[in-house]
């Protein structure tokens, strides 16, 4: 019976927390714009095969009766030189781009986080030196260059492009967590847990990590835009997705040599890239507003 009472109280507190977070998020109308766009893009990426007008355009398809048609009712974004519907390919493009970003961030994020956490907690020990010097080395090279370098020694494919970005991405999380952990390590609540005899695992993952969530989530959100941009850049130079895979970067790359006559082939996918980056940026700002300040109860 008492358990139920506590359950109730806990649930009501959780509900209140959610309400407060929603309030903070919605203070800035742009965040709502970002959220809507993100939702729309995720929807498109998930259901692309069902909502595109000409799903066959996404794969190996050729229709010489419809080549190089400018935007019309049947093909709102026009067709490319193989007769494929640009709208469909753009929608599928979101699928590949978003999928790649999700994979990179969800794998490299945690790896970088854990490394940074451990390095920060064991500051000034050999663990710190090894991890952070490795981080320094990777950070010293700009991400795009690093990804290019890795890609160029592997066979070009979308999977290898993802791998290359992974290699370039983890150090940023490591460094961010290192800094946060170093400063949190000396807080009294961490000391209190240590003095009581809590295990290191508990301190790292139950005391320190919850206090890092805000910058982590914000960064992840903003990173989606970055990963898509870099992935697109890799595809643009031919090291990422190979034809006929409709990755957004490949679309722009293929079409760029036909500008300005067949402008619709390049312009619409380019706008699509811009839209997804903008969406995640606005959304990331909203997350920052929501989780960032903790002043006043």
């Amino acid at each position, binding site marked *: 019976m008492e358990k139920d009472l506590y359950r109730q109280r806990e649930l009501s507190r959780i509900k209140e927390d959610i*309400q*407060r977070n929603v*309030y*903070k998020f919605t203070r800035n109308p742009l965040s709502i714009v970002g959220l809507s766009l993100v939702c729309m893009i995720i929807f498109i990426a998930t259901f692309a095969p069902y909502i595109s007008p000409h799903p066959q355009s996404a794969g190996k398809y050729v229709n010489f009766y419809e080549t190089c048609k400018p935007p019309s009712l049947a093909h709102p974004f026009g067709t490319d030189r193989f007769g494929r519907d640009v709208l469909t390919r753009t929608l599928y493009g979101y699928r590949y781009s978003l999928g790649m970003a999700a994979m990179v961030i969800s794998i490299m994020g945690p790896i970088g986080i854990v490394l940074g956490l451990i390095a920060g907690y064991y500051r000034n020990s050999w663990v710190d030196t090894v991890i952070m010097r490795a981080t320094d080395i990777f950070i010293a090279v700009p991400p795009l260059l690093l990804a290019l370098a890795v890609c160029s020694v592997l066979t070009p494919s979308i999977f290898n492009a993802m791998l290359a970005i992974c290699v370039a991405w983890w150090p940023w999380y490591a460094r961010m967590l290192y800094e946060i952990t170093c400063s949190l390590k000396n807080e009294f609540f961490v000391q209190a847990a240590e003095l009581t005899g809590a295990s290191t695992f508990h301190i790292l993952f139950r005391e320190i990590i919850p206090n890092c969530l805000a910058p982590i989530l914000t960064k992840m959100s903003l990173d989606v835009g970055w990963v898509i941009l870099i992935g697109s850049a890799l595809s643009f130079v031919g090291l990422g997705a190979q034809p006929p895979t409709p990755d957004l970067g490949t679309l722009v790359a293929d079409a760029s040599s036909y500008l300005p006559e067949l402008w619709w082939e390049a312009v619409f996918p380019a706008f699509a890239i811009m839209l997804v980056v903008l969406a995640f940026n606005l959304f990331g700002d909203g997350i920052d507003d929501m989780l960032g300040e903790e002043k*006043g109860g």
Partner: protein
Amino acid sequence: MPTPLLDIRDLHVWFRVFKGFLRVLDGINFAVWPGEKVGLVGEMGCGKTTTMKAIMRILPIPPATIRGGEILFGGKDILRMGQGQLQKIRREKISMIFQDPTAALNPVFKIGTQLQDVISCTSESERSLKNEDIKARTIQVLKEVSLPDPERMLENYPIQLSGGMRQRICISTALVSAKELLIADEPGTSLDVTIKDQILRLIGEIVEKRGTSVILISHALGAVRNMTDRVYVMYAGSMVEAAKTKDLFDNPLHPYSQGLIAATPKLTGGGVGEGIPGRIPEYIDPPAGCRFHPRCEHVMPICSDKKPPFFEANEDHQVACFLFQNDR
């Protein structure tokens, strides 16, 4: 009866938050006469700093809103003044010393630079001073607050100084522009006892010399007792008692004031009691009527119904409590 220098009348300040409004200030009445030292005593969260920020008009306007009342300074309402007049008052008439001297000084500029900025912005006559004169003035200002070796002090950065010295510098900058009223918000609170004593004495001396009025805000009763002529006691956004300092400490009338004094540890021993039962009310839904009534042992039915105004209990001793309603 001469007019007060500062007269706050029925001030209401609310703050907009997620769940509604925080009704922080609930009809504040507060007056300071020229040359007076007035204390404002109250615990954390009672609204003292909000009141002072309202006077200086540095409240963050959203989320804060001023729901009513006036703040008369020299007869003119500060709340309705234009920017020009307001700037003039901030430059020349009123100044504030903040609680934390470290936060009040810019860490990337030298002391000399910061002082010069203040001096050259202050008044017409000061603004037209030449550089050498400004430097001489900064040294003079530092000497007034008994800082050793003023010449060298000008070249220091705030981080090189101790807390006591930083507080003195804040006092000196405040005094440059405070010709009529100085608001000291918990001065010396973050400092050691011996240094705090020095700082309070310093403020007292300078203020006596110049005839400036002072509002001394503190949650520590001891400092207020020794440095002020009159005291206001504040609780949860209302003034509950106002009296001459000696009268308040010899004969506190409001149950809250009595509770505060009883809870203050004394050098003669005797324990600290159990404190005041209950807790400070939430401003989002404050108690009706007298805001102290849920914690008061003398509570009467009328207390939850109407808000008590100031009653004149003795000469120059006012209490906002219905216990004193029928007194002369």
